[in-house]
């Protein structure tokens, strides 16, 4: 469904390519995990898909096709038609990613306003409420009229998800959606994503540097390092049998609850 071929992105202000030669596919209804160290180009890859590259300040090549539509080189008018409607994006920092002066509900409904101007504002209101309910926001009628600063991080992240799914996009890009959250809330959001994937068949690109999380959610995983895709495969395969040394290190570094080598209890 999504096909990234040989993607290169280089920012004018940087020496090194941020993304060099990444090729990826996401199949219908699949959740692909993208992991890698900070600065490895995960976000840039996702932004290229979403049409959010700052085109003036970087060079890019390759191709990105969503169901046969070329996105990377598409003009802004076409992109605008796809953005929000076909591709939804959920960003890492929900607080700064929401317009602080716009009501939550209006932000959730904004995609509809832009892509379906024919829908009356009343209908839009109900659609927004429905989407918020779907994203398991408690008490959506009340939340609709609130402003971002009045909500907790977890609620905001749900609102972001509601906004992203309101127009039933084919593809959802999730850029570290749980990193800023508490473990308990993190778990709830992951459940929610699983449910959406199950019930609506939305494909997802899930970016994280938390391998445990990726393992819980994704069927396939891709590993990036310094702009290069170093490994890709079924999650369990990669887990059990990492090939690339970086992947190996990454997995080794995961704090697990294995027994410590030398417990020194004698001090107690």
């Amino acid at each position: 469904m999504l096909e990234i071929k040989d993607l290169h992105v280089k920012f004018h202000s940087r020496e090194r390519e941020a993304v060099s030669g990444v090729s990826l596919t996401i199949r219908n209804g699949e959740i692909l995990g993208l992991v890698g160290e900070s600065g490895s180009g995960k976000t840039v890859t996702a932004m290229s898909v979403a049409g959010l590259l700052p085109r003036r300040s970087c060079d890019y090549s390759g191709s990105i096709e969503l169901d046969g539509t070329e996105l990377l080189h598409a003009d802004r008018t076409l992109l605008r038609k796809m953005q929000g409607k076909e591709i939804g994006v959920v960003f890492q920092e929900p607080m700064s990613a929401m317009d602080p002066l716009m009501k939550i509900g209006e932000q959730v409904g904004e995609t509809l306003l832009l892509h379906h101007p024919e829908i009356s504002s009343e209908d839009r209101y109900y659609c927004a409420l429905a989407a918020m309910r779907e994203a398991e926001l408690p008490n959506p009628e009340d939340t609709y009229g609130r402003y971002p600063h009045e909500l907790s991080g977890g609620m905001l992240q749900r609102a972001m998800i509601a906004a992203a799914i309101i127009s039933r996009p084919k593809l959802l890009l999730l850029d570290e959606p749980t990193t800023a959250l508490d473990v308990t809330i993190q778990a709830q959001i992951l459940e929610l994503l699983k449910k959406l994937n199950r019930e609506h068949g939305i494909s997802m690109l899930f970016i994280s540097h938390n391998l445990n999380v990726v393992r819980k959610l994704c069927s396939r995983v891709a590993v990036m390092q310094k702009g290069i895709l170093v490994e890709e495969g079924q999650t369990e395969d990669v887990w059990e049998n990492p090939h690339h040394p970086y992947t190996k290190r990454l997995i080794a570094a995961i704090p697990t609850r294995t027994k410590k080598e030398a417990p020194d209890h004698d001090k107690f």
Partner: protein
Amino acid sequence: MKYAARKILMLLVTMVIVSFLAFLAFSLISGDPATAMLGTEATPEKVAALREELGLNRPLLAQYGTWVLGFFTGNLGTSYSYRMPVSSLIGQKLPLTLALSLLSFLLILVVAVPLGIRSARQSESRLDGVHTALNQLFMALPPFFTGILLTWLFGILLHWFTPGKFPIFSEHPGLFFWNLLFPAIAVAIPRIAMTVRMLRSTILHEMNQDYVRTAISRGNDRVGVLYRHVLKNAMAPVIAFLAQTMAEVIAGSIVVEQVFAVPGLGRLLLASIGNRDWPVVEVIVVILAFWVVLANTIGDLLSQRIDPRLRLGGDAR
């Protein structure tokens, strides 16, 4: 509403402090109103008698008390030098200064806001550097210098207006504003440049915020982002800035009134300080301070209406 009430209370407190400080300052300033009034006719006996008559021998606090009491009963006192009620004296001057200040402020709004938005939108253009430099140049034009050039060019060489002539509003409203326009321009030019700069960088700052990326990801185009999201967000700091501008415009008027011989509050203030005509000075100081504090309070209240985060009771700025 609690917020508004608190702001208004603050305003009153500030006004009381200001009026008292002003009063205190007069007692420190060298020179005595009675001597000033008598001029070359002053003899010690005459001065003493006049001081008695004016109540200048009473303790400072008592004088202040009388003044405050009078203020609230609508009696602003009597000018020492003009021997007429301060209220009617100010009444003749205030409209002109207000008109001048409001006109400059209007000019600033009308010119600077579109220019600022434009300049932000064109921040990537090749000419941006030139625009910024020009903007800095305009910022460097002191109103009294611009004023002199304007009178020379339009008053003397081109005869577009008559320097020093300010027709009464009720008689020639058109001419009144036409003649005020030139001083207003002189006051406005550097402020316009500052406002453009402020708007530009605030908008650019907002443009770089994450929520703009979110908005685009939903399918907004640049214009939509600007008008639906960015401008609203840029508004709160801009309003605070404009409030400050509004406050400073009146100070700019004081100087420019001198350049264009506008018979407004500024000139009355300067003359009254020279004459040690404290009843007049006190009222003008209170009016000016009220204007400044009011502008800031209105700015705060407006920002707070726009930005729900401030409704928690925080301060704009």
